[in-house]
């Protein structure tokens, strides 16, 4: 006891020194961890920011901007899938509108309230089991997933024969034909879809939480896929299908994988869109929808997931910004602009914004340093 009392300054100093050493070690470790995983921290930071933004924006945003952002995210979801099959894998498919159509209709059939169903299907009653089902808002995700699965099933039907036998523009035309067949079926099955008159009064479940949440998941999946061994196989198929096959890659299975992924994304996007706009007709998901997606991925860079996301938001912005031109000045002008944009980017800007590359933090750093060196 007395010894302790006598030595307390020494002991205290020793403790302090020990504490300092521990803290320094922690700091070093923390720095090392930061250095090794700074990308993940930055990504986490961005996700947290996104979370904060969405929770504020759901109430605080101007309704017009809210709508543009929702549309942007929906286009981005579909475009990410689309760029995986068209860009990463290089298999040119033009059937995306058919898959969106399926997603939109199945989601709608599942979430439309029963009283609304009675009002819409006046002439002929809606077939079982949809006349008994009306999922509440809390089960919206189930309806969306069902839409995605429906699209995947359709993709299996067309993909198994078409991806095995066709490539290039033949594949494009065959998938386009399939998309149109889906449209014609939907338009000609009034007991199920109310035909060309469409369905109105869809509950507006879609909001920023859903669109951005699903976008984040889809982007994560697509990036993981592209950077994985499977993604390498997909890219190899784009670059030289014959060589990839000669190295033992089951080309057909990988093409199908990419195709199903893209169909799933398109189905989700279709469902989200239906619950955003509230009224759907088969005409809403015709070939021009695939044209939009094509424009998005061409602008963003075919095969770039980052490009598809950025392109989706850019497209939605231009689309809504030009709406007044379409309604007030010259109807149809918007599509002329889009068509010219597509032609021009094919002629002069074939790489697109990102080429086949992706956004990375390191790349941003390089770009930042480059800009900084120019400024100085």
């Amino acid at each position, binding site marked *: 006891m007395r010894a302790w009392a006598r030595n307390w300054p020494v002991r205290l100093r020793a403790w302090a020194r020990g504490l300092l050493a521990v803290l320094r070690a922690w700091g070093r470790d923390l720095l090392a961890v930061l250095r090794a995983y700074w990308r993940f921290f930055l990504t986490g930071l961005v996700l947290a920011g996104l979370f904060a933004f969405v929770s504020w924006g759901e109430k605080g945003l101007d309704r017009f901007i809210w709508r543009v952002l929702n549309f942007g995210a929906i286009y981005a979801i579909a475009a990410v899938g689309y760029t995986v099959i068209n860009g990463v894998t*290089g298999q040119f498919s033009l059937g995306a509108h058919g898959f969106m159509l399926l997603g939109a209709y199945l989601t709608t059939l599942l979430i439309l309230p029963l009283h609304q169903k009675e009002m819409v299907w006046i002439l002929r009653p809606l077939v079982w089991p949809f006349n008994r089902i009306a999922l509440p808002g809390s089960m919206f995700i189930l309806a969306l997933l069902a839409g995605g699965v429906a699209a995947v099933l359709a993709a299996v039907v067309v993909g198994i024969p078409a991806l095995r036998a066709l490539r290039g523009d*033949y594949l494009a*035309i065959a998938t386009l034909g399939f998309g149109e067949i889906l449209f*014609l079926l939907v338009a000609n099955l009034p007991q199920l879809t109310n035909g060309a008159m469409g369905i109105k009064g869809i509950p507006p479940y879609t909001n920023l939480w859903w669109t951005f949440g699903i976008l984040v998941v889809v982007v994560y999946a697509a990036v993981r896929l592209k950077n994985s061994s499977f993604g390498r196989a997909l890219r190899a198929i784009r670059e030289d299908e014959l060589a990839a096959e000669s190295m033992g890659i089951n080309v057909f299975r990988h093409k199908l994988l990419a195709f199903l992924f893209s169909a799933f994304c398109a189905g989700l996007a279709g469902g989200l869109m239906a619950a955003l706009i509230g009224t759907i007709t088969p005409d809403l998901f015709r070939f021009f929808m695939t044209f939009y997606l094509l424009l998005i991925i061409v602008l963003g860079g075919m095969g770039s997931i980052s490009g598809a996301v950025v392109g989706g938001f850019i497209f939605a912005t231009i689309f809504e910004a030009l709406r007044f031109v379409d309604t007030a000045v010259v*109807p149809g002008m918007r599509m*002329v602009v889009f068509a010219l944009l597509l*032609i021009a980017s094919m002629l002069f800007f074939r790489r697109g914004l990102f080429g086949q590359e992706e956004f990375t933090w390191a790349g941003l750093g390089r770009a930042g340093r480059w800009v900084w060196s120019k400024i100085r």
Partner: protein
Amino acid sequence: MSIFLQQLLNGFTLGSLYALIAIGYTLVYGILRFINFAHGDIFMFAGYWLFYWFFIFQLPWWLAALLAVALTAGMGVVIERVAYRPLRHAPRISLFITAMGVSFLLGNTIIVLPWAGGRQKPFPTPAFMTQVYTVGTVRIQGVTLWVPLIAAACLLALLFLVYRTKVGRAMRAIATDIETTALMGADINRVISYTFLVGSALAAVGGILWGCRYPRLQWDMGVLPGLRSFTAAVVGGIGNIVGAMLGGYLLGLAEILFVAFLPHLSGLRDAFVFGVLILFLLFKPTGILGKPLKEKV
């Protein structure tokens, strides 16, 4: 005249129109190996040129029709020059995408243009098309008589052009092997321009005859006939001129018979055509008369 014969004649008429359009697809595919997606819209444009010259500028019908064919043919050449030629050495899929862009551009240009617009317009049908002729005991309308006849005449003229003239020989040579032909000193660009000229002119004739048969104009009226004619080209064997004609007639007949015998499925008429297209692409991509294109390993 029995119903069946009437339907047969309808199918034949429709088929001859498909044949006229299908030629354009097959010529371009044979030479450049890409699907000129905008061809259907070129076809549509011919009707609108006629509409303009006849209704707005009040020219006599025959002159308006001639001008329409000439202008449409010129459009085909210009489009190739501006949008396709710079991409000749790019991946083929880039050409295809560009052609889609051109297709959407042409269609929506109609909506934007004054006097045309997005709503349906009447097509100026000339008197000799609506007149009713009496041959023996059979009374026959001008359209049913003239449309297949004019179409057949154009197809014969095309066959003559391709198989009996110097340009035609150059076109066939390029279709076989573009590089060798270039080495032998042929002016590839000129021949390709000719190809687009001829293909678009035939599509223009097709467009005008189509208008006489179904006298309505709409900005997107080129899309479906375009796809159906492309189907005809595939059925006949893409790249093969005689095949395109054959495919056109076959598809026209098949389509009319489908509607005649399965009237309750008439809404799915185009689904039937696309089904034919997909089945041919999958199981007989070379069509009825085409030769297989071998992939080089």
